[in-house]
């Protein structure tokens, strides 16, 4: 669902050294204090991840350890092997991947064309449309779950991916439209006009000039849609119940209920799922230089 799960990667303007960076008046002692504070913050941010690594490597007879230690005695990778080959986790991951890729593609296509209309045309209902798009961001996910569940029962699309794909595909669309519209508007319209003078139609200019220039924003929007759907828990929770249809979020939560003591399985799965997501996230946040928040909500 949209709302809290949809997180934007905000603008990071990397250019331009500013006063504090340029002044270099920090004394040695002050620099030490700053490094100490930042190191502490980094440890706090990293700590659960480190702990999970330790728990994942605990041998079977030591899963519950009331002694605090980061790297356990007799560390082993058994839990990784176990969840990969002896549980349904790979299937759950596959289910999530298929659903998520499908919905992210649909969401991106729908948002890219609408955002173009909002950025480059004046038409009746434009202002109202933008307001309504913003208002959808206020709808609590829990509020939409109630009717979606009842409708899914009535249309008999529970325990199938049909309902999942349909319901998920539009949840990120309002947010995507705002981001893309903001980005399109930073591209000088003269480029498209030049293409039109050279004989392109307006829509061809969109397709051949604006879209290729917007690749970074399109990639980011695809990633948002992808991550929002990938990390979603509550929609699958109300729509899917069959073991072989679960998404990884649901499967993992079930892991914890079923094997209350198998913390090492949970930890090993958590690590394997997190690493690609985190890598993708860090990578994309680095090359996103354009102003996403500046484009989305002009302050």
């Amino acid at each position, binding site marked *: 669902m949209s*709302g809290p799960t949809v997180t934007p990667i*905000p603008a990071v303007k990397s250019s331009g050294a500013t*006063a504090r960076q340029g002044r270099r008046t920090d004394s040695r002692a002050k620099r030490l204090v700053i490094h100490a504070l930042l190191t502490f913050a980094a440890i706090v941010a990293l700590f659960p991840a480190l702990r999970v690594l330790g728990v994942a490597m605990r041998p079977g007879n030591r899963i519950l350890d009331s002694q*605090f230690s980061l790297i356990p005695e007799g560390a082993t990778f058994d839990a990784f092997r176990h969840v990969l080959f002896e549980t349904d986790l790979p299937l759950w991951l*596959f289910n999530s991947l298929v659903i998520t890729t499908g919905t992210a593609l649909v969401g991106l296509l729908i948002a890219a064309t609408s955002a173009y209309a909002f950025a480059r045309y004046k038409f009746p209902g*434009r202002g109202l449309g933008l307001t309504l798009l913003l208002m959808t961001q206020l709808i*609590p996910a829990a*509020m939409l779950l109630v*009717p979606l569940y009842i409708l899914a029962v009535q249309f008999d699309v529970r325990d199938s991916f049909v309902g999942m794909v349909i319901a998920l595909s539009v949840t990120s669309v309002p947010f995507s439209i705002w981001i893309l519209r903001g980005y399109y508007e930073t591209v000088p319209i003269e480029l498209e006009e030049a293409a039109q003078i050279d004989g392109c139609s307006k829509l061809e200019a969109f397709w051949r000039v604006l879209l290729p220039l917007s690749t970074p924003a399109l990639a980011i929007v695809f990633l948002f849609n992808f991550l929002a759907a990938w990390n979603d828990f509550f929609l699958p929770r109300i729509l899917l119940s069959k073991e072989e249809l679960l998404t990884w979020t649901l499967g993992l939560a079930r892991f914890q209920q079923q094997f209350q003591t198998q913390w090492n399985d949970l930890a090993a799965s958590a690590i394997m799922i997190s690493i690609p997501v985190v890598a993708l996230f860090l990578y994309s946040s680095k090359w996103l230089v354009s102003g996403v928040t500046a484009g989305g909500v002009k302050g």
Partner: protein
Amino acid sequence: MSLEAVTTAITQVGLTLVAIAFLVVVLEGLLYLLLVRILRYRHAIPLMLVAPAAVGLAVLVVWPLLWELNVSFTKMSLRNFGDPGFLGLERGWFVGFENYGQVFSQPVLQLTGFWQLLGQTVLWTAANVTLHVLGGMALALLLHRQMRGKGIYRALIVLPWAIPQVIALLVWRTEYNYEYGAVNQLLGMIGVAPIQWLTEPVPNFVAMIITNVWLGIPFMMVIILGGLQSISSDYYEAAEVDGATSRQAFRNITLPLLRPVLTPAIILGTVWTFNNINVPFFINPNELETSDILVTAIFRQAFQYNRYGDAAAFAFVVFLLLLVFTVFYVRFTGSLKGAYE
């Protein structure tokens, strides 16, 4: 991972995508005929571009909400489940505004009523947003300088935001375990007696806030850092020439110039925190009603107690509350000025 399950997944998703594509083509074809050929409407093209999104949102957001509004006037529940029809009139489920009245007069959950939930939600939102902004601001100010390892610090501190939330929450929940969790073990090292994070009301509420602050600081930090970097150095140089202290520079330059970035971020943060269903749901495995906020109460009322009619009415009350707050706040701060040009 059986072949059968794999093919089922691919076929179902593939067919759904084909169906969506087909519907879009049909929609565009009809619009083309109607707007371009028959009406020769001059705004035909933008309307055709917007149509798929508009129809998608109408079918999957607007229609379900209207439908929910319909349900909110009925006594739909596990016992009375099915298509209520218009206002449940035919089935005799129509109850008028009774559900709306009950939101305020009867417990929403088993014991807890609307006003207590509202209080808990306000406390939850205020505590989180305040700590997010303060923490994010502190870290951004620390990072906003030339220093060694800046990129590494930034990447590490952003980690809580990058980790899939369900995973982060499952991990935090286990770390709050009384005996085996890291939180109590660390507290034990500095001589603090173990705390019942998951079973006692107050510690559980605190645990929820700790977790959500950990989750939310990176977003604010990145936003504020972006804002700091966009402030021109000329202001600070001028202030230095005029002999301003760094505290004065912060109050009179940094804060006002951060406002355009901070205000929308705070609005977003408030709405997200208010609507956050993940954290209060996962960090409260024993379903303490003292840890529920309005949106988790909607979820429990609908999906644990199966009181669909009540939950629908309750959801609209909560939505209106948020809408009024946001409209007021946006007007008051003028933070969206110019968003429409």
